[in-house]
């Protein structure tokens, strides 16, 4: 398109805007066009402007002038048709590039369950901005995929299944999944340079707790599009940032079943209990002694009288919370990492023995009746793309002591296992964009 033609068409398009728009901006736009070297891009840009201002309610008060609209549509169509032929394939190529995702070939890394709704949100791949998928899990063994969105790692679903909190480039983000086929981003909470450690909805769904490196924030999410900061809980780090083994773990923060106690992992290895019965006046009630490893997961027993903490070195501690201000350790199990074997039968976590063997993930949960504590450790042999889940089940007494463990193993893929709440079902990922379930013994 020659400059002269583009200039004339651009000027004609300025005249195709709605009357109120023209009265306000026509002279200025013509002045800009006098100084601007118009091109096909200018014409296309103005055609889009004409169409968008005609549908903009702010400029819509005049009676619709059919001849004017018809003229605008005709000019736009004449311009758009040849451009569409050229730009269409280019645009499609760009769209494909945009939607390619490094997570496309990777396994399940994150899953958020709802306590009361048959909705599950998963993410695949290790990237922070993972591909999320929303599932109908009315029958967990036959999930139906409802939608997908690029929103980061899902970490927690509100109990009613209407809001999912994700981690998107260190920002906690809230998504409305009340209509699970059309997830919508509704709020973004602040990031922190030290990284987000975890987030969790309270059992009544009114509070979202977000754990950062050295503090925990409590948000009122009764209006989820406008989260209101209720309380900042400082958890000063006892060691410098950067020395943490892992920055993010899906189970790093947990509410007790009645919502009165919050357990958080901050710093490099600090586990703290907070009284959050009145979230606006929440306070620290106890620090849990440190076994020198990174806390990877919490599980409260269904009655809330026991707390189990799983550490990255393969240590599990159980505490009685009969007096939450003085948590009493009732059980200590170490060495799970050694006892969980790799697929080829090797048991040592020594990289010399198996350079490609890694510890992919782990999960901890009490059974719904509170009589069993389960820990699953996934160990993976990367070069063979195979993995093995080792399942440790301990009978638990009411006072929190553990009986003898039953240890079983099953072949699995290289994925993080997730234990569905209120169920004895485990999610794992055999291949990209897939997950499967299997029942615990």
């Amino acid at each position: 398109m020659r400059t002269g033609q583009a200039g004339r068409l651009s000027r004609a398009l300025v005249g195709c805007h709605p009357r109120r728009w023209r009265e306000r901006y026509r002279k200025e736009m013509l002045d800009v066009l006098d100084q601007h070297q118009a091109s096909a891009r200018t014409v296309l840009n103005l055609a889009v402007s004409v169409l968008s201002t005609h549908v903009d309610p702010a400029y819509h008060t005049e009676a619709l002038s059919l001849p004017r609209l018809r003229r605008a549509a005709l000019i736009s169509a004449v311009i758009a048709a040849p451009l569409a032929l050229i730009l269409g394939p280019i645009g499609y190529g760009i769209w494909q590039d945009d939607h390619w995702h490094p997570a496309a070939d990777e396994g399940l890394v994150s899953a958020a369950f709802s306590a009361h709704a048959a909705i599950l949100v998963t993410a695949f791949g290790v990237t922070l901005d993972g591909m999320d998928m929303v599932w109908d899990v009315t029958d967990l063994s036959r999930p139906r995929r409802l939608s997908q969105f690029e929103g980061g790692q899902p970490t927690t679903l509100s109990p009613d299944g209407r809001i999912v909190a994700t981690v998107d480039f260190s920002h906690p983000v809230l998504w409305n999944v009340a209509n699970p086929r059309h997830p919508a981003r509704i709020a973004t909470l602040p990031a922190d340079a030290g990284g987000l450690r975890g987030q969790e909805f309270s059992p009544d769904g009114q509070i979202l707790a977000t754990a950062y490196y050295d503090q925990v924030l409590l948000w009122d999410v009764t209006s989820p599009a406008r989260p209101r900061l209720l309380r900042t809980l400082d958890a000063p780090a006892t060691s410098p940032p950067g020395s943490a083994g892992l920055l993010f773990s899906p189970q790093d923060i947990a509410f007790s079943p009645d919502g009165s106690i919050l357990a958080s992992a901050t710093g490099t290895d600090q586990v703290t209990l907070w009284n959050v019965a009145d979230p606006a006046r929440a306070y620290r009630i106890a620090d849990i002694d440190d076994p020198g490893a990174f806390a990877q997961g919490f599980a409260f027993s269904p009655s809330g009288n026991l707390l189990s903490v799983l550490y990255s070195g393969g240590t599990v501690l159980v505490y009685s919370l009969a007096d939450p201000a003085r948590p009493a350790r009732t059980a200590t199990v170490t060495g799970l990492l050694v006892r969980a074997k790799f697929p080829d039968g090797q048991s040592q976590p020594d990289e010399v023995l198996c350079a490609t063997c890694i510890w992919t993930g782990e999960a901890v949960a009490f059974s719904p009746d509170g009589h069993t504590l389960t820990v699953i450790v996934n160990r993976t042999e990367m070069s063979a793309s195979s993995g093995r889940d080792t399942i440790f089940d301990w009978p638990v007494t009411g006072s929190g002591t553990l009986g003898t463990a039953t240890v079983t193993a099953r072949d699995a893929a290289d994925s993080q296992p997730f234990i569905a709440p209120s169920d004895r079902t485990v999610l794992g990922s055999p291949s990209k964009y897939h997950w499967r379930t299997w029942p615990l013994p």
Partner: protein
Amino acid sequence: MHGKFDDLGRFADPSLLILTSLADGPKHGYAIMADVAAFSGVSMEPGTLYGALSRLERRGWVRPLAAAERRRPYEITAAGQEILTEQVTTMQQIVQVARLRTAMAWGA
């Protein structure tokens, strides 16, 4: 905290550029386009410019001044300065996290 900029849809990026351009004083349409091109390399077309300006004006983030012939200068309002500061702070946080993460990932 939902960013107010997110409500601007496809005009979010042009709006940020326009507010940045007006931060050091009022400018008319073509001067904004030339300034934006000079400091960011972004070549903004008139349709985009006035689409974004009208939205900024409706939100009270910029204010039109008296026109001299066909040229009407715009100036940033106090609310516009506040939103620009907020947006820049968010971007600084992103840069800070990106630096930290890349330093950790590559051992720089």
